[in-house]
């Protein structure tokens, strides 16, 4: 899957999970930039991504993802490996 397509889908997921229709996923975005992105919603976000893209993250991968750009890279690698 191309990065642009992943960003588009991720934007949809973020809007649903964080309840903000104005959100647009960008590479540098972190939890600090999104009002509803707290530790509770973080777990929901990860689950929603796994469901949307049909992938499963490892413990180490979840811990490595510090911003949206790193998430997209993980998603790209995982969907390519499918």
């Amino acid at each position, binding site marked *: 899957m191309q990065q642009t397509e992943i960003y588009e889908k991720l934007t949809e997921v973020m809007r*649903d999970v964080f*309840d903000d229709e104005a959100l647009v996923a960008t590479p540098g975005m972190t939890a600090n930039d999104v009002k509803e992105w707290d530790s509770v919603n973080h*777990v*929901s976000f990860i*689950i*929603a991504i796994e*469901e949307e893209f049909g992938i499963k993250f*490892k*413990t180490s991968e979840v811990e490595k993802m510090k911003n949206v750009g790193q998430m997209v890279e993980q998603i790209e690698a995982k969907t390519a490996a499918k």
Partner: protein
Amino acid sequence: MHLNWLPVREDWNALLALAKSLPPAEAAQAMRQLATSRMDFTSVGKLDRALRKALAANGGSLPGLEPVKLAILASATTSHLPAGIRVAGLRRGLAIEVYEADYGMYRQELMDHSSALYAFKPDVVLLAFDARHLAASEGATPESALELMSWCWRQVREAFSAQVLQQTVLPVFPWLMGNNEPRMTHSPASVVARINELLRPASEEQGVDLLALDQFAAVDGIAAWHDASLWHRSKHEVHPQAASAYGDQVARLIAAGRGRSAKCLVLDLDNTLWGGVIGDDGLEGIVLGQGTGLGEAFAAFQRYAKGLAERGIILAVCSKNDEKNALEPFEKHPEMLLKRSDIACFVANWSDKASNLRHIARTLNIGLDALVFADDNPAERAIIRQELPMVAVPEMPEDPAAYVDTIAAAGYFEGLRLTDEDRVRSQLYQANAERERLKDSVTDIDGYLESLRMTMVAQPFDSVGLARVTQLINKTNQFNLTTQRLSEAEVSERMNDPEVVTLQVRLTDRFGDNGIIAILIARVQGGEAEIETWLMSCRVLGRKVEQACLNVLAQFCTELGATRLAGTYRPTEKNGMVRELYPSLSFKALGEEDSNGARRWRLDLADFQPQPVPMRIELPSEVLA
């Protein structure tokens, strides 16, 4: 893990958007329909958010949704669970407000009477302890875990009149020995298994209802319920993907405690109870029973339905057929497990099924929301969902071999305790259908009532009947003046209070025993008896039983020194039928209706003359004397 019995709704997102713009009553209805459709993880979150916003905008309640306060006391992360619980509550007409005690703080919250938990005043308390908390700490034994849980139950009991739900322990630990793990009694896996074993009798003894996670993990696999990675990262014991299933289980227990479980399974015939079409294929042509896998699958479904009937679920038939053809297998097919006598209401004709379902609910005197309609035909299911959204219509799988699992998994008939009457429920309703037929043939109502040869037996509550009395108090919706729900402990308190008149009333007639058909509780204070609870089974309506009950109640209250009888009618969505009960029994209004539509009524016992009733009344001997 999805709730597979819920239908997929193509316009789900559009309907959610619409629901957000509707006025409260319509919004609640639309959201309830959304909750009754299949959802993924994200959709549950979206619907939950819309529900909470609508509730907040409408002062914390929504028309048509019964408010319930649920407190979760847990040892690990539960913040991902309330959304699924609230959405599942919505599915059952409940607006569940959730309070979560701080992670791991349940002991302090229970001990501190000034805690937020006490301020919240829960109607239901859910105790959710993770496996590591109970079984993997130093010196943990099954007995010490049970002791901890019993302590919690006692604390809750003493503080609140709440339904107590205890989650069983998820079997998250891998085995150390293997197939013969229990031989190592102190292995974590063995301890968990033993705790779950001990919980069964202990919970029943103490009136606690189990949330049997271990049972579901055995069906779905532990991996569906628990993910070690999530535990290590964030102490989620229940997998967020299982949160919908978890929420549905919690909501069905709460609904069952409030009399909201379904009461009747309505069955289609062709390709639901047997393979093929009886009208075309004939008795020899339909597929049922030994010989083919498909035939055995239909037989297994019949066996399951029969099992439900044996625990008190009413069975009905709703089929598009000539009645003669529809009845033929019941009368003549050797492999039919269901007999005509198992079916309390049998409707086979060519009218539309929505009208027939209405007729079935009316005949059985139950609400449409007490019906579950099982039909293999997607078109019929779609019409019923459209016409009668309150009827539960499971998505039946294409393979009849999966019918049983679908109905079982959907949990429409969640039950909390089994009484003797549950076991003969089907006969009760069958006899009632015969009474209705007799009524049709007798035009003079007094003559009809005399011909029933009724005997009413009224007596104070006793410990033997306590479970049944509590069950009726918590599930009777229609003929119920105050709809006051009580825990078994509270019923028992009233039973033992010398100032309180309690009556359980049975009715027999020429068709059989109707069981306990009325419950009355009146508190006598300063010469006035206040009727706290008056409820009756709708099975016996129109038989002057309410007048007979009043005669008996007046007698008991007079014995305790009351000179006046007072009662309140408190309206709910379902009890409109008793709005005029008190005036019809010559009570005088005390003031106007209050803002909730409630109104108080009073009857002067000094002038009261027992009215003649068409039945014999038996009372305990000391009252007669």
